[in-house]
């Protein structure tokens, strides 16, 4: 019987299925951890003493330090899109719709999703590695032994800063995106700035702005929550910190794309 078991464990079928189950187990485990920490965050938020200094430091880190790169990425994405689309639209006689198209595209999608990607790579990874380092150097254990709630101390200011700052980043990124689109259009076509902005103005809907802000709130909170959770549950040494950071980035990317899809289905289907 043992020989059979040994033989079975060496088989390709066993290896493939055990690998799939290990991945599934890790997926469900991480999902459970994020859900638990999310619930604990909301519970802590209701009764936590919010340290204004810590919150402002986290807001500065989330919003201000990431701003140049985030705005550049959204601006460049906008230039890429405008430079490819504008010329073609002018040729087809739709030049006066370029501003409208660019504004709708940026306010509805590019501003929020590209800012989200930029924030994940800059802030999410930094939060995850910070908490993971605290975990592997026993600093989180020290917080617990000192009878301080780690969710209140570590999660509340970070997730709250994401919720507060991300909508601001999305608005600024959208403004930069529309302006960058105007510059790219002017450089690649004969269309004037005035024609672009007259058309752009028509593309601004209150609903789109509201959804964009809501996306900012949800994306910011999700990125911070996932990053903090992945860092919090890190294990091992330097390798564990690396794995937790990678996991935070991958999960955040997938999560905001799923959220984006949900928003599209709810508001624009």
């Amino acid at each position: 019987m043992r020989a059979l078991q040994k033989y079975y464990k060496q088989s390709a079928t066993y290896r493939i299925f055990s690998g799939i189950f290990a991945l599934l187990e890790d997926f469900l485990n991480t999902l459970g951890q994020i859900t638990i920490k999310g619930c604990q965050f909301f519970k802590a938020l209701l009764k936590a003493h919010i340290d204004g200094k810590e919150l402002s430091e986290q807001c500065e880190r989330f919003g201000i330090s990431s701003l140049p790169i985030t705005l550049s990425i959204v601006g460049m994405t906008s230039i890429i899109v405008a430079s490819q689309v504008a010329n073609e639209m002018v040729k087809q006689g739709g030049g006066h719709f370029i501003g409208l198209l660019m504004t709708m595209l940026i306010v509805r999608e590019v501003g929020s999703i590209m800012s989200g990607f930029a924030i994940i790579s800059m802030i999410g990874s930094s939060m995850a590695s910070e908490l993971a380092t605290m975990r592997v150097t026993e600093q989180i254990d020290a917080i617990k032994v000192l009878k301080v709630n780690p969710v209140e101390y570590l999660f509340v200011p970070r997730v709250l800063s994401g919720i507060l700052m991300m909508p601001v980043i999305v608005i600024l990124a959208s403004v930069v995106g529309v302006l960058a689109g105007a510059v790219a259009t002017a450089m690649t076509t004969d269309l004037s700035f005035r024609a672009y902005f007259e058309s752009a103005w028509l593309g601004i809907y209150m609903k789109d702005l509201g959804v964009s802000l809501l996306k900012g709130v949800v994306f910011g909170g999700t990125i911070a929550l996932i990053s903090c959770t992945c860092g919090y549950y890190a294990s091992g040494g330097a390798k564990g910190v690396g794995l937790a950071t990678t996991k935070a980035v991958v999960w955040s990317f997938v999560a905001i794309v799923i959220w984006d899809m949900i928003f599209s289905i709810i508001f624009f289907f």
Partner: protein
Amino acid sequence: MSIEVKNLVKVFDEKRVIDDISFTVHNSETLAIVGFSGSGKSTILKLICGLLTPDSGEIITSEGDTAMVFQYSALFDSLNVADNISFALRERKELRKKYSEKDLREIVAKKLELVGLKGIENKFPAELSGGMQKRVSFARAIVTEPNSILYDEPTSGLDPISSTLIEDYIVRLKEETKAASIVVTHQMSTITRTADRVIMLYDGKIVFEGTPQELLRQETPYTKQFVTASLEGPMKMIA
């Protein structure tokens, strides 16, 4: 009685790392827990301070705090020394409003003085030597006036003179706080200079219990092997 451990069991991956262990540590007493690496010494400390949950058994501690000094100090590297020491007083709900900034400054200065460090309030952990970090972690541990203090290998990685200094502070803190202390260590000097009693763990069980002098007498195969650091004996290292 300050710490009482009854029939404690902890299982990791089907292995009983702590296997039915019982002991008591009284106030103003220091118990050293010794044994090979992986014998479950640090696990006992984590169970006592609540970082791990026992699979069975009971841990009874007197009312009040249980403090822990971590092996690598575990100071918060983003906070300066003063904020590290006053962390529990600033962040714990029940203590937060009890102290003014002036009170906190005075408490920090007093605790730093107790561990022989003065005027380093504004330094960050990375600017301190290993021995100084350890002493700051002592100060952080005693800031809430705990009833029991747990030391996880407090002298590991330190030079002999720094080790002696740390050992002196362990004794001094016991005298000052009257706390029940448990010191997990490998070092003979730490055992003989700080402990009133010693227990030795092997394979999750207590294989020796007595005074440091009894340990040094090497009257059992276990104590003989440990004191002489011999590879021959009843305890087998897992390479």
